[in-house]
Each structure stands twice: as structure tokens, then as C-alpha cells.
């Protein structure tokens, strides 16, 4: 388990490895049903629910037919990649995890930055809790550099994504899946958390997103092949029957034209009170707005900010972050875009990409619980309002892991399983 720092190598997480070393003796004595259980959480980043039931993701359709598909599943807000991956592994809302969006204003550093550092994540995750508390090894195979960063060395085993494509900073799915299969063969983790980034990354760049979605479609076709590799691999290894496979997205995707953009920074600068005193963390379909002027003017300033944002064409709604349970680092106000619109702040060229998410129209996601394990219920469509943060309590229920201090915010989706076969 010693860490080897070649980028191609599957790294041993220091915390997880140490925990496994210390608890090695108890590994075999974890909860009965969990002894040979393998759980794989596969995130098809940015996948829309209509794509999950469409013609290009036949493997996802097959998995849905063999398991439970949650027809009303949604991401948590803000519908961005980092907060939803964090929610999947922590089972708690952003006001407890510390990760409300991809990008926030960091007053200490005086910059807007991605929450891609291990210290940004304040809540415990399954990745270190399972090995530490039950001696169950975990792994993370995450295609995006900031996901690799935010989860740090929490997993027992982790893969540092490579090769990273320029502009997208993600590893193509063919490499990510290759790493995932190697991870299974080399370390056989009981829980593996995988992010496949192609569908999202090529969707962001797809200039035909509002019509034929050419790049997006090609990505879907390839990702389907990678998922097929994964299922075939488990079947070839003879481990399919002890596997639970959760396939979901972190958010979906919406496309906008170059004329359907919202620039709030310029409008704030036209207001004498706000000029120079507002910072904006732009998250595609959502803007986090921060008042940085004198505290004595804050209340008045928020009224101005809200009025300007609400009256801007393309803005759907404006919210107090507290009502959304986003936590203090989400700023003073959160503005959402309408479908077909995107924010571009601070300048009108800050966000040139046509595909965006973060706004409510991108909260609908596919969420499927499947696999070959006999406890998986077959052929169900559930209307339960599943959320990304339900993944952690669901996985915890399978392994018999206790809730974290303060309990889960999510809910274990136990209706996807034969209750008699679940651990007590």
C-alpha cells in the first residue's frame, strides 16, 4: 500500500492504507452481508435523464431494467460537479460538507477558486470511514483533476487522472475505465467511486448542443462502450453476482446560444453602492454573489443586488444561500439562470462555453441501482425523490456503516434492495 507517485500508478491513500493496516485483522469480520460485497458507484458526469433512457446508452438502460431506476432523481443544488460528488460520498448538505459549488470566492486568498483541495471538504466520507471503521478497502478513480484534489488521500486506493486533456483537465473515459478495471484487478476494493468525465466535458464544448449535439452524442456512444467494458469485466471475473452497481449523474446539462448570456458584474458596477464591492463566483448556470463592501452597508447592498439580478433577462430566481443549505462560503445571494441561458462573469467573455449546468433545469439526473447481487430488486421504477446525497447512506446501509455524527442528510434508498437480504 505504499504510495507510488507515478501518475499512471494506482496510489495508496495514506489514511486509508494506514487504517487498513491497523484494522487488517478485522477486515474479514465486517458485517456478514458485506464480506464479499462489492459496490461500484459510477458517475456519468453531466448525463441527462433523457439520454439515460435514449438510444446511445444501452448499457444504462439494461442496468435500469435489471435494477431500480429513480425517475425523479435530482442533484443537490448547486448542480455542479464537485458539490454533488462530495454529497455522494458524505451524505450531507453543503452547509456541513463545506462544498456548495465548484467555484467560490475565497476572501482569505482574495480570489475566486475551485473547491478542489482536500482541505475544502469538511465532512467525513465513505472513502475513509469504511476502511477506518469497518476495515473495508475503498478506491477512487476520478477523471477530473479537481475531484482528485478534493477527495485527497481519503480512499484506500486512488488513481490520479491521466492523461489530462488540455482545456478540459480531465482524463478521457477510455483511460479512466482502464484504470477502474486495473483497480479492481489489482486491489479489489469493496467500494469504488468512479467519475467518467467525457459526457460532461464534450457536452460543455458542443456548439451544436442546442440542436444535434454532435460532440455530446459521440461522447455518449463512447461512454456506453466503457460501461459495457465494466460490466463485462465483472462478469468475466465472476464477481457480478456479488456486485451492486450504482450509476448516476452529478447533474445534467443545458445549452445556450452566444446571445443568451447573463453578465451581472457589469450591472453591479453601474450601481454606485455596489461598484467594486461585489465578487461573483460564476458556476455556469448559477452565480454566487458576495458583498465585499462595508458590513454597515450590507443589508442595503443585498437589496440592490437582488433587484438587479432578479430583473436581469435570463435570470430565473435569486435565493438566500441559507434557505438552500449552502453554507457560509456560498456568499450572500445565489442567482439561477433560466433554461437556455448561462452566466458569464465577471466579463461577457468569461464563460464562452455553450454547455452549462448549475441551474435548476440541470438538476434532473439518472439514478440507477443495479448489479448482479441477489439483494438487488429487479425491474423497478421508483418515484422516490432520490438525491445525489442518498448514495452515501445507501452504501453505508449495504456495509452496515453507522451514520456520521449529526446523521445523514440523505436517505438510504433501501427500496432498491430485497430488505430481507440487507444487513441488519
Amino acid at each position, binding site marked *: 500500500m505504499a504510495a507510488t507517485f507515478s501518475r499512471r500508478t494506482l496510489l495508496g491513500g495514506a489514511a486509508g492504507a494506514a487504517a487498513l493496516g491497523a484494522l487488517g485483522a478485522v477486515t474479514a469480520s465486517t458485517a456478514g452481508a458485506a464480506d464479499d460485497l462489492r459496490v461500484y458507484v459510477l458517475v456519468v458526469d453531466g448525463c441527462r*435523464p*433523457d439520454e*439515460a*433512457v435514449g438510444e446511445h446508452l444501452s448499457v444504462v438502460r439494461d442496468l435500469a431494467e435489471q435494477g431500480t*431506476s429513480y*425517475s*425523479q432523481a*435530482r442533484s443537490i443544488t448547486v448542480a455542479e460537479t464537485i458539490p454533488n460528488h462530495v454529497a455522494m460520498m458524505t451524505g450531507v448538505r453543503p452547509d456541513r460538507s463545506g462544498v456548495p459549488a465548484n467555484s467560490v470566492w475565497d476572501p482569505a486568498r482574495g480570489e475566486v477558486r475551485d473547491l478542489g483541495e482536500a482541505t475544502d471538504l469538511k465532512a467525513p466520507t465513505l472513502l475513509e470511514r469504511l476502511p477506518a471503521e469497518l476495515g473495508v478497502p475503498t478506491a477512487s478513480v476520478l477523471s477530473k483533476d479537481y475531484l482528485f484534489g478534493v477527495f485527497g488521500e481519503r480512499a484506500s486506493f486512488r488513481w490520479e487522472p491521466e492523461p489530462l486533456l488540455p482545456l478540459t483537465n480531465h482524463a478521457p473515459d477510455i483511460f479512466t475505465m482502464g484504470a477502474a478495471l486495473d483497480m479492481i484487478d489489482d486491489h479489489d476494493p469493496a467500494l469504488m467511486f468512479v467519475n467518467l468525465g467525457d459526457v460532461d466535458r464534450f457536452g460543455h464544448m458542443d456548439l451544436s448542443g*442546442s*440542436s444535434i449535439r454532435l460532440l455530446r452524442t459521440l461522447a455518449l456512444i463512447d461512454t456506453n462502450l466503457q460501461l459495457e467494458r465494466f460490466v463485462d469485466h465483472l462478469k468475466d471475473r465472476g464477481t457480478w453476482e456479488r456486485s451492486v452497481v450504482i450509476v448516476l449523474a452529478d447533474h*445534467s446539462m443545458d445549452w445556450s446560444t452566444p446571445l443568451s448570456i447573463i453578465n451581472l458584474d457589469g450591472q453591479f458596477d453601474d450601481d454606485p453602492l455596489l461598484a467594486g464591492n461585489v465578487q461573483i463566483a460564476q458556476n455556469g448556470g448559477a452565480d454566487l454573489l458576495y458583498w465585499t463592501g462595508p458590513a454597515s452597508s450590507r443589508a442595503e447592498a443585498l437589496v440592490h443586488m437582488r433587484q438587479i439580478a432578479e430583473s436581469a433577462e435570463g435570470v*430565473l430566481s435569486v435565493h438566500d444561500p441559507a434557505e438552500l443549505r449552502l453554507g457560509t462560503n456560498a456568499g450572500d445571494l445565489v442567482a439561477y439562470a*433560466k*433554461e*437556455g441561458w448561462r452566466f458569464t462573469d465577471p466579463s461577457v467573455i468569461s464563460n464562452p462555453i455553450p454547455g452549462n449546468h448549475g*441551474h*435548476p*433545469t*440541470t*438538476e*434532473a439526473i*439518472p439514478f440507477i441501482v443495479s448489479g448482479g447481487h441477489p439483494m438487488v430488486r429487479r425491474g*423497478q*421504477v*421508483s*418515484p*422516490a*425523490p432520490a438525491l445525489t446525497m442518498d448514495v452515501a447512506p445507501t452504501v453505508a446501509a449495504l456495509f452496515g456503516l453507522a451514520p456520521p455524527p449529526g446523521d445523514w442528510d440523505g436517505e438510504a434508498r433501501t*427500496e432498491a434492495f430485497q430488505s430481507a437480504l440487507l444487513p441488519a
Partner: protein
Amino acid sequence: MSQVFDRRSVLKASGVAAAAVAVGGSVATASSVWAEEADPAFTHGVASGDPLPDAILLWTRVTPTPESLPGSGQGPEVEVTWEIATDNAFANIVETGNVVTGPDSDHTVKADATGLSPATTYFFRFRLGDAVSGVGATRTAPAADAALAHLRFGVVSCSNLPQGHFGAYRYLAERGDLDAVLHLGDYIYEGGGGDVRPHVPAHEIVTLADYRQRHAQYKTDEHLQRLHALVPFIATWDDHEIANDAWSGGAENHQPDTEGDYAARKAAAHQAYFEWMPVRSEADKIYRRLRFGLLAELSMLDLRSYRSQQAKPYDDDVDDPNRTITGAEQMAWLRDGLINSGSQWKLVGNSVMVSPVLVPPLPKDLLGPLLKLLGLPEEGGVVNPDQWDGYTADRGRLLDTLVDNGIRDTVFLTGDIHSSWACDVPRDAGNYPNSPSVAVEFVATSITSDNIDDITGLPPRTVGRVIEGALTTLNRHIKWAEVDSHGACVLDVTPAAVQMDWFFLANKNDPASALSHGRSYRVRAGTQKVARVGSPVTVGNA
């Protein structure tokens, strides 16, 4: 009115009670035993409606004395007792109560039976002195958080009594597998005369007494009465409950010079409706929402009381953002309900079509400015400005709400136009399918009200086919239209899909006419697209 009082086709208590049983969780009946003679005090039958998890609205009308005829304003005040039980022998009565009624409410009786258990079949009856009503069967809604696997509704509209017999109601009553019947409006018609059978009164109804007598006549139809007794109704009104093409301040079929003040007529129509229908009312407000566990939520709309006057076809008034079909308050209520629904399927009881029916539909982004310049509707020529097509700003607000908030699985259930339709609902019909479907719409045909073959006098499936071909060719989101047949629909709701089955009458002029399966369409969860399926759902497979 003596013929109403003397009518013999009413349910006999023991007959229905023996026939009504719970099958698979739905109210059901075997072939009902029809009455020899029911107590004349309960000539208008019994009904239930608006099921909640813990309550159901019970309805009847009493005729305590021969002079207490509907609309007469005559007769004494009387106290009526209601009973609701878990068994049809009334050995286990769970709730009972008394209601005082009299001429002020036209001797109608409405009682909200509360304290009931969710998803439970109940039996109910009324007593007036020694007289006992027929026994009704009904069923409460599931608990709000119940993850149920199945619901089934009858879906109907447009039952014009002089234009045929209500064999379609008979069909639904005989199925025995329905959780409720959704009536989407035009439950009565305001006109006089009659082709197949005469309206009562014989003239166009205008006054409160008129509307009361008309409702009373419909409530004595044997098929409708039987369905009311066996399945709870969830009803809304369309225009003919007042007058044709009604809007907030008038109606096409209202002439103030000869028929008086429209507001007075509207108030009379509404009063009679609330007296005679098993619907809950709150200060003349009928739009409301009913929840069926995690599986479905039903928003019943009122698209007549608050709407602006209809525009003319091909008039760009249809795009005026200040014109409304819902009114601002109802629109806010509807949007809020859709956004915050905790249920999977968002069913919208919608009295007029929401899908664009345009000749031709035009891409708004491309040609909208030119059409606006020409004074034409931005989305294309409007065939029927009485539908949502005539109020495009409100439709835009509604459909924007769906897409802006990522709302899936919205199904509009519609009546009004005496024909059958299955449609995808795109936000921009001219750009469909590039403008994707954001909901679907199923339109129920009429129980009896005339459609194309009746109006043209030509054989069915002749000119109708031509019209259907033109509509579906020009409007690619309209997947099916059938403009000749009458009947009833059955809506089957599961987590995986919602399916609408159309059943058509062989002959609407024959009270014993058979019905046969006409067509079925389904929307699978998450798709927002209709697709044809070959077979209807199995009767009783609830």
C-alpha cells in the same frame, strides 16, 4: 319535473352493496343489480368525490316532498344522516353525521367524511327519516408518502345529454378497477332542445332554477348515476357548465340584451354546480390539487373563471402578455405546485388543449419578429383561440416553468374538443423536435358531444381522416388525432409509465351500445414523449 321525480332507474341499496367489492385496491363492481324501485326521496342517487388520504366528499339530493322538485325553491328543511362504513352491510360504520338541507341549497347534501384511512374502500349511504338511499362505494387516496405502484383513473369530458346516451359512463362503472373518475368539464350543456333525448328544461338555461333543473336531469341518467355511486369523481368545469366559450366577463353564448347580466348567470351556474357536484369548494374556487402518494399529484384547473376574452384566429392578440387563461393567482399556484411537487407524475386536469394546434406552426425564434410585424401570431396560425393557443404568454410561462426547473413527467389530461389526441408538448412547436418535448398531453374524446362526422353528416372515418392527416402533418408533435369517435378513456399510472387507453362507442345513440378499444398511447418515465402501444391495460389488473 314529474318525470324526474318518478324516474325509476336508480340504485337500490342492496343491489349495489352486493355488487360493489374491492378488487386489487380499487373500487369495483360486478355486473350491478339494478333497482326495481328505490326510495323516491333519493331519486338523484349518491356520489362521492375529491378523495383525500383521510377524507372523502359524499353527496346526495333528497326530495322530501313531492313539491320539493329541483329548482322549485319549494319544500321543507330536513335533516339528512350520512353513514360511511368499511363493509357494504354497514356492520362497521366508521363515521356518521347529519346535514340540514332545504330549498336554499336545492335540497342537495354534501358531507365531508373525515377521519378515514388512506387507500381504503368505503361504503356510504344517507337516511331521511325511514327512507334510505342507495349505497355508494368509494375510496380514499393513498397516504401522501406512500410509494404505491399503481393508480387507474377514468378520464371523461363533454357529455351532452341530447346528443346521445351515456354508454361510456356505463362502461367505466362496469370496469371495476378505477380509483377515481376525472371529469374534465362540460358535464352538462346549457342548450335547450334535443336530438336523441330532450333537455330539461327545454330551453337554454340561464337562471339558477334552470341550472338546478339541468343538473338534476343529468343526475337521473342511469349510467351516470351508476358511475357516481361506484367511483369517486374529481371534476372541474369547462364552458358549458355556464355557456359556450365562457370567459371571465362573458361568453360567446350569452347575449346580455336578452339573457341579462352575465355575472348573475355565472353566479347561478356556479351555485348550482357546487350544489349538485361532489366537489369541494372554497369561495367559488374550484382549482385544487389532490395527491396520490409519491406516484402522482393531480392539479385540476379552472380555465374559465379568470381568463381574458378570446382573441380572433390569426390575430396577434393571442401573444399579448397581458392576456391570461388562468389568471395570475392560479398560474402562480400551478407553477408552485409543479416546482414543489413531491410526486413523480404531475397530472394536470386541463379543460382545453395546451398543445399547439397551428396552421402551420412556425419557428418562433426565426420568424417571430416578422410575424409580429405582420400582426400575426408569433408561433403560427391559431385554429382555436379558445384553447391555450389563444393565450401563448400564459402557455410560455407554464412550459418555461417545466424546463427552467428541470421538471419531468408532466401529463396534461384534457377534454373540450370532442375528439382524441396524443401529443408531445414542445415549447416551440415550429422547431420540434429540435425544441424538445417538455410534457405530454392526452385528450379524451366526448361522451356524446358531436364531432366531425356528426357535424358534417358524412360517414365516420371519411372526412375525419383527411382532417387528422392535415393536423398531424402540419404539427409534428401531434402524434395522433381521431375526430369521429365518442367514448371514455382509462389512464393507468405506474412509476414506469402513464398509459391512456381510448375506448369508443359503437353507437352513441344506443344506451346499450358496446365500446371497443380504439387506441393506446404511453409516456415512459423521464421521456416526455408519447409512444403508441398495441393493447390497453388489462381490466382489473390494478
